[in-house]
Structures are given as C-alpha cells and as structure tokens.
C-alpha cells in the first residue's frame, strides 16, 4: 500500500515527468509487442488501400487508426515497426559511443600526460568537422544498413562523453578517498572501476539520456537523406522522407511520424532534465561539469 501512495505522490509532484515516462513505456511496449497493438502486417502492401485517411475501416479488429501509406500499408503498424528500428538504433548507438567515449575519457582524466594529450586532440579534431558530414561520407563509403548507421552515430558522438568524463575524472582524482583507496593497496584499475566510476555515473547517465534524443534525431535525418535505414525496413525519418511528396494530399503521412519523433525526444529531454535536477540535490554527486585547464600545475605524472 505504501508504494502506491508514494507513487501517487510522485505523479502528483512530477506531472510532466510522469507523462513522459508513461509515453516512453507505452512506446517501448508497442515496439516489443507489435502484434498486440495492431492487427496489420507492416510489410504487406495493397495498392487498392493506398493513402486512406485516418480511422478508415480495415479488415482487422481495428480500423486503420492513422490511415494508410502510398503502398497501402497500415500507418500505425509501420509507425510501430519504425519505432522498433529507431529505438534499437538509438539505444545501440548510445551504448557504443558511450562506452567508447567514457573509456577514453577515463584513461585521459586518470593518467593525464600523453594519453590525455592524444585523446583530447582527437576530440578537438572530431569537434572541428561537422558530424553530419562525417556520417554522410562514411555511410556513402560503407553503404547504408542498420549496423552501419549505429557505427556512424557512435563515431560522430563519442567525444561528448570523453570530454565530460575527463572533466569529472580530473576533479575526482584529487579526492581524498582516491588517495585513501591507494593507501589500502588498490590498483589503478580497481580505483577507477570501484571508487571513481560510481561517483561519476549520475552525470554520465544524464548525458546519455540527452544523447539518446540526439541519436534519434540524427538517425531520422540520415534516413530522411536516404543514407540511413533502407526500405523495406522502416524508421520514422524514412517515413517522413517517403511521405513528403504527398504533403498536400495525405497530411497523415508526415504528421504522425513527425509527432512520434517530437514526442519521443521531448519526453527523453524532460526526463533527462529531471534526472539532472535530482542528481544535483545531493551536492556530493553533483554533475557540475568543469573543464579545468588542460594541464593542472604541480601534479606531475606518476609512471
């Protein structure tokens, strides 16, 4: 009983956050259990059902709630199928770029010296080239596919994590408890994994959440430009691209995928903002990201 009242209180105090969470949960549920949401196969085409407006009658237990597309596919089914692809791409690319960036940032911030120089110059280099350009170039060379899209998104965004992680590590390595861990005989790896990472996880999680929204948008743009997800697979960006020609005759073709992108990224951003506010409530876990000068004075490098 207690957790019900606590849950109710949470919803009351954080209405927007609760709505966002509810939306994402429903979306994830729909993506996983697609068949429970719509009776139509997103891959079966029927030109006779071309561009039906929303709420037209269909053959299944549900009408074509969002209408149909130029190939006669049920738009809701395609949208849910697109959600699958978009969410998988978003999650995977956050995971890959996050892991890569955090590991490099940890090494740079902990060991300083040459490691730091090399990693940070790489970051600067990548920051100075527009990421969409890199993405287009790599995808043009490798050819578009789901794995390549994930790969491209990861290599264009890893430096965000590397920067933030390094900044956090620079302040963390001066903490007395790190010294204390060394005085107990802990190795470098153990100090990083057991003592430092738990302390920087909160801001990294906030960052990863925000990045998830960025990834969704970038994936949509890439697919819109024709270098992302390829038909017959569908994603929200691809649906926008395909519906663009019919903007004046079938408004639902772009409206619903556009709304899906908007609501999903908005929800994620609202949740990330709330997470950040929550993590700064306890001052010792604050996610204040401070970039100290590249070389702190006095701290020489241990072998």
């Amino acid at each position, binding site marked *: 009983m207690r957790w019900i009242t606590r849950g109710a209180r949470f919803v009351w105090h954080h209405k927007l956050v609760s709505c966002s969470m509810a939306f994402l949960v429903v979306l994830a549920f729909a993506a996983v259990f697609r068949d429970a949401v719509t009776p139509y196969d997103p891959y079966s085409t029927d030109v006779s059902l071309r561009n039906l407006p929303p709420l037209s009658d269909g053959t299944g237990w549900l009408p074509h709630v969002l209408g149909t597309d130029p190939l006669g596919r049920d738009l809701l089914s395609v949208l849910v199928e697109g959600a699958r692809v978009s969410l998988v791409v978003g999650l995977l690319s956050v995971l890959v770029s996050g892991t890569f960036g955090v590991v490099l940032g940890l090494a740079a911030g902990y060991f300083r010296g040459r490691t730091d120089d090399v990693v940070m110059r790489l970051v600067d280099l990548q920051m100075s080239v527009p990421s969409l350009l890199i993405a287009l170039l790599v995808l043009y060379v490798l050819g578009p596919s789901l794995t390549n899209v994930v790969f491209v998104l990861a290599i264009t965004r890893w430096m965000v994590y590397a920067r933030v992680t390094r900044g956090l590590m620079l302040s963390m390595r001066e*903490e*007395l*408890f790190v*010294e*204390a*861990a*060394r*005085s*107990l*005989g*802990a*190795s470098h790896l*153990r100090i990083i994994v*057991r*003592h430092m990472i*738990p*302390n920087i996880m909160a801001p990294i999680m906030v960052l990863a959440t925000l990045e998830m929204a960025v990834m969704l948008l970038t994936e949509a743009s890439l697919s819109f430009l024709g270098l992302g997800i390829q038909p017959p697979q569908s994603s929200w960006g691809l649906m926008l691209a395909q519906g663009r020609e019919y903007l004046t005759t079938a408004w639902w073709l772009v409206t619903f995928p556009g709304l899906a992108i908007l609501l999903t990224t908005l929800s994620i951003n609202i949740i990330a903002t709330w997470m950040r506010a929550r993590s700064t409530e306890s001052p*010792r*876990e604050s996610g204040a990201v401070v970039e100290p000068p590249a070389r702190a*004075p*006095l*701290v*020489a*490098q*241990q072998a």
Partner: protein
Amino acid sequence: MSTVMRSPAPVRGQESEEPLLDVQDLTLQFHARHGLVRALNGVNLTVRAGERVGIVGESGSGKSVTALSILRLVRAGRIAGEIRFAGENLLTVPEARMRQIRGKEIGYIFQDPLSALNPVRSVGDQISEVLRLRGVRKAEARRRTLDMLQRVGIKDAGRRIDDYPHQFSGGMRQRVMIAMALIGEPRLVLADEPTTALDVRVQAQVLDLLWDLADERDLAVVLITHDLGIVAGFAERVVVMYAGKAMEECSTDELFRASIHPYTLGLLHSLPRVDGEVPEKLMTIGGSPPSPSALPSGCPFHPRCRYALDRCREQVPAFVTPPNGSHPSACHRAEVLAQSPGVLQ
C-alpha cells in the same frame, strides 16, 4: 589539550633489535612554477614494533608529507634517503609489492574521514575492501568487517554496516577510518592528525580507542599532530619537525623536561601552563616558518633562533646526539644546550 589522561608507558629497552621502521635522511623535492620546492630536507624517524611515536610540528612542517612518502603516496617529486620497513627498502621495492604493503603491513588513518571515505559506497563495503583485495571471500570479509566495526565501538554494527559515510557523525566516521586502517592487521599505522576535526571529548575517545587497539595487537603507531598535549598523553617517543627537517628526537618525558633544541624549547615556552600563574601575554617564537620554496641557508630555524651563530647561517646542522646529551638534535649549539637541558636562556 591534554585530552588523554594516561601517562605514557615507560620507554622500551633500547636493545639491539632492528627497528620496524627506520627512516634516514629522507628528502623530497619537486619543481613547481615558482621554482624548486623542498618539502622534506632530512627526516629521521625510527619506530620499533609496538611503539607509539609522535611527530609534532607546525602546519607546513612536512609531517603529513613524511607519512605519505613512507607509503609512496606522493605523486610528484623526487624522494631520496632511506625508508626501511621490516628489512625492506620501501623506496626501491616494485609498485606491486608496495600495493601489498599498503593496508596489509602499514595502515593509514586520514585526518578528514568525510572526504577520505567514498560517498557512494557503504562503509562496510569500504572497510572490507582491504580484505577483498587480498582474496578473502565475501562472506568471510563481511563477518570480519562486522567484528571490526564492533571492536571500534560502532553500536548496532549489524545494521550500520550498510550505511553510507554521510549517515555517521564525525567521531563515528573516524572510528570507521580506524577500522579501515586496521582490518588488514598491519604492524604499523600512520595516523595523520586523526583527531583534528573532532571536538575534545570525542578526540579523547578516539585516541583511547587507538591506544587500546595498538596495545592488544602490538601495533606500532606513528601519530602526527600539532598538539603537544596529545603527544604528551599518547606517544612514548617524539620527533619534532620544522621546515621539513627532523629537529629533535627524544622520549616524551625528555621533550617536556630535557629538550636540547631551541625550536622545541621555544614551542614549550609558548604554551600556557596549567599549574603556573596566568601570564599577561603568551611568549611566541618571533617570525614565521619559512616557505619550502625559499628556505634560508644553513639551519632553517636560524632566522628565528635566539641562539643563532654565524655558523648556523652557513652550515646545516647534523642530526646527532651531542657527547653530553641523551638524544639526537639538529643544532650546532646542542652541546651548549645539553649542559642545562630543558632551559630556555
């Protein structure tokens, strides 16, 4: 002041047994933007097994750096000299061996337990880390941590073992630190001002606890403090430090009655006496301690010393026992002072 109301135990016999820790002429220098910083300029310290030794000195005299250097925890700088611990030279052993020594052979108690404890890990987790690092199984480590927490006087230890550092009071946190330093059953503990952040009553409790634990485990303790009262109550022997240099080493008794170093004598005379009359104005040592990046030539104390000769300006005094003295002192005039020890002229 005078927080521990126990008289120090008699000094152990000075037999031929090798000391547990023997630090000779330890120096530490590092380069900073404003030039060469000489943090340590000749520290001598010997600790026998089970002995309690105090290091006293003003802020910035190099007490903490000495302790950190013993465990090779100072990241910057060049260390020279010799640190022998149980027959091993700690300055030359490989890093892997050093990691075994830390925590297992030599424990370290930090001054500020709140920042020395990781805020996001439970205290039980942190205390048992020393054991876990050495391959003790989880359940066994937890059991021993529980015992240790009870031993350091944490009430309801079974429940508190999973609490986080911010849920403890200052005194309790320092007890946790002590548990952390002692769980590996070291032979030597370096306690760096363990009671400075605590109020006087809790100071006494923590020092009593440290005393009892040292006693029952035959543990040697190096207690770093700026408080002569704490040294008087706790240590058997004392090293007085000034400007990164050991100035005098003697038994606690000799420190208060028979000092033969002008700096120590000056310190003692700047203390108000409980049994004497209340002075109008406390005596002070004129001037201020030198900066480690701009040490005076010769004896670092000579600009403030009322005994200073020309020689003191030119030549660094050796840390030796004068022929008529009972203990070593780094002073050119130790022999003169040893004629009437403990008297400031």
